């Protein structure tokens, strides 16, 4: 019989398929994986929702019809607790009134979140920027620059950061005011953002550095060098796109961290000061009423916990979805 041999070129890879994942970028795959995680999706929606609400606080409060500054002194008893039923929770004041001044709690929460988020977002951005730049510089160029950066990182990491920020708060805020960069709460925000990032970037930069170092050893970087690529192009085209995963995870986990940090410093009286409103200030205010009007404390603490939880869960879900081990 005739022996028939098929030509190998005729074989397309159509049947010898590469699995069901066809035509999707790593981002899309991560997204698909993320979408499968119900808890993560809900948390992400909450997180984004909260940020949007806080950014749009003036509009939102106007729509709901609440105002953060209107005092309702007339409905307070001698101890400052609203005398209305359900502590003032009503259609007009969905979360009730704040004891002491009778301001609307929802509006205050929304406005209060703005500074809290501002601090968290600014700190995260600054940390991200410093960490990314120094991490890539150290990891990619190595050599002496890296050695120096490494020493500085080690040095900073051996500081008890929280402690240092507490210890430095008063003198540094005064110093900032004196230099005229900012006054009052501006100076306090500058202080918090600057020092939280100052002690925060080494952690992130280490992560990025190790990633950059391992990426640098990957052959695609050598390939780019072999093609005559400039360092600039390698950093921006080859390294950075591969650093998105740690960046996104870092952002989603450091936002709640810094949000909580701001509230702790305000709670201790070292952060932003009244009359500005932040979640930390609301919380420390709420502790005064924890027995006489527990719902105030529960709503404020609950909001903080909810937001931190939502961000953390989003971060976890993102981490799972972007896990480099699932990358291939």
């Amino acid at each position, binding site marked *: *019989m005739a*022996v*028939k*041999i*098929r030509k*190998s*070129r005729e*074989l397309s*890879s159509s*049947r*010898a*398929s*590469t*699995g*069901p994942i066809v035509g999707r970028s790593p981002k899309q795959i991560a997204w698909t994986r993320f979408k499968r995680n119900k808890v993560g999706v809900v948390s992400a929606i909450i997180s984004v929702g909260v940020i949007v609400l806080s950014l749009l606080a003036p509009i939102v409060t106007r729509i709901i019809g609440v105002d953060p500054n209107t005092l309702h002194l007339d409905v307070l008893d001698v101890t400052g607790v609203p005398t209305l039923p359900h502590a003032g929770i009503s259609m007009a004041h969905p979360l009730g009134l704040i004891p002491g001044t009778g301001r609307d709690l929802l509006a205050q929460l929304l406005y209060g979140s703005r500074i809290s988020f501002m601090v968290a977002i600014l700190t995260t951005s600054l940390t991200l920027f410093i960490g990314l730049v120094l991490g890539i510089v150290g990891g990619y160029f190595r050599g002496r620059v890296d050695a120096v950066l490494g020493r500085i990182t080690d040095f900073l990491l051996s500081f008890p950061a929280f402690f240092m920020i507490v210890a430095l708060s008063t003198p540094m805020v005064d110093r900032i005011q004196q230099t005229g960069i900012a006054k009052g709460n501006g100076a306090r925000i500058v202080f918090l953002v600057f020092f939280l990032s100052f002690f925060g970037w080494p952690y992130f930069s280490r992560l990025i550095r190790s990633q950059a170092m391992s990426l640098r050893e990957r052959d695609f970087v050598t390939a780019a060098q072999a093609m005559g690529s400039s360092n600039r192009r390698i950093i921006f085209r080859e390294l950075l796109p591969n650093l998105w995963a740690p960046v996104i995870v870092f952002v989603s986990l450091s936002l709640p961290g810094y949000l909580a940090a701001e509230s702790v410093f305000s709670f201790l009286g070292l952060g932003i000061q009244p009359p500005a409103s932040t979640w930390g200030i609301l919380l420390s205010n709420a502790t005064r009423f924890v027995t006489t009007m527990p719902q105030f404390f529960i709503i404020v603490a609950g909001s903080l916990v909810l937001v931190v939880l939502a961000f953390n869960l989003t971060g976890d879900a993102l981490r799972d979805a972007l896990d480099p081990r699932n990358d291939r």
Partner: protein
Amino acid sequence: MTSLLEISNLRVSFPTDDGDVHAVDNLSLTLNAGETVAIVGESGSGKTVTSLSVMGLHNPRSTKLSGSIKIPDGDQVIDVVNDDAEKVRNMRGRVMSMIFQDPMSSLHPYFRIGKQLAEAYLVHNPGKKEEARKRTVEMLDLVGIPEPAKRAKDYPHQFSGGMRQRVMIAMALMNTPRVLIADEPTTALDVTVQAQILTLMQGIQKEFNMGILLITHDLGVVAAIADRVSVMYAGNIVEQGSADDIFYRPMAPYTVGLLNSVPKITYGEKQRLQSIAGQPPSLINLPSGCAFSPRCTYIENAPAGSCAATLPDLVGVSSSHVSRCHIPESDRPQVFSHVAGGK
């Protein structure tokens, strides 16, 4: 010859999010004393899964196993697949032992070599510390570690790759098992070291009259030490026979393709390699019929449409040489006539 190991109709699959991964599909195999049986196949064909099944090392909660793996232990015969896990555990390291592909990561980095070896002995001989120590030194000596008593006090990272693989072999031999499973024992090693290990394994087999189940993708290694060979493709055995049968009288297109793909050290004019086109299939959505059919160069010689329709049976010229193919057996020698190494 008594059979030390009898695998029949073994099926292993792993449920995953994307569907079940059918890693091993209906595999049967026997291993006799003093014999080396090799399983060859490409990456992902299910070799390691088979060897772990024999050891009973799959996680029962994430693995679906069926069929049977019978291993005699004294007067009784234990079925690794269906018997009590505790019984199987009791046999591990005593009746059957295993050496793994990567000697670098297979030893615990935190414990001294001696302790790890002695432990293997003590599991099955509780309390006999002194004997364990003696045997450790003995075995290290046997596998060719110089100054064994001294080296037993070292940690794994103080050994080179080849030495570590020797240690792994020594550990596998601590209780003089009858079945030794070697999963790619030399893949991570250099050729010169590989030669040392292969020679060592052959020597040990003679000494203990063990049955060795050798798992590898290197046809050279198979040719060097295997008595019988099973060729696997996508979880299936496509051909089984003596080493000579497989290398000189291959009956399955995949075996032929494999043999043709291997470059050989030759004098003079070099022939172009005959590669197998395409890629191995996904184990989740196996092609219908014969899993190899999409890549098969000889498909036109089979009855039209049969390859894509049904999986051929494992039948053969003789009971010891069987293969899977729809091409009529009588046609095959002619079809495969250009096999390079054929004699």
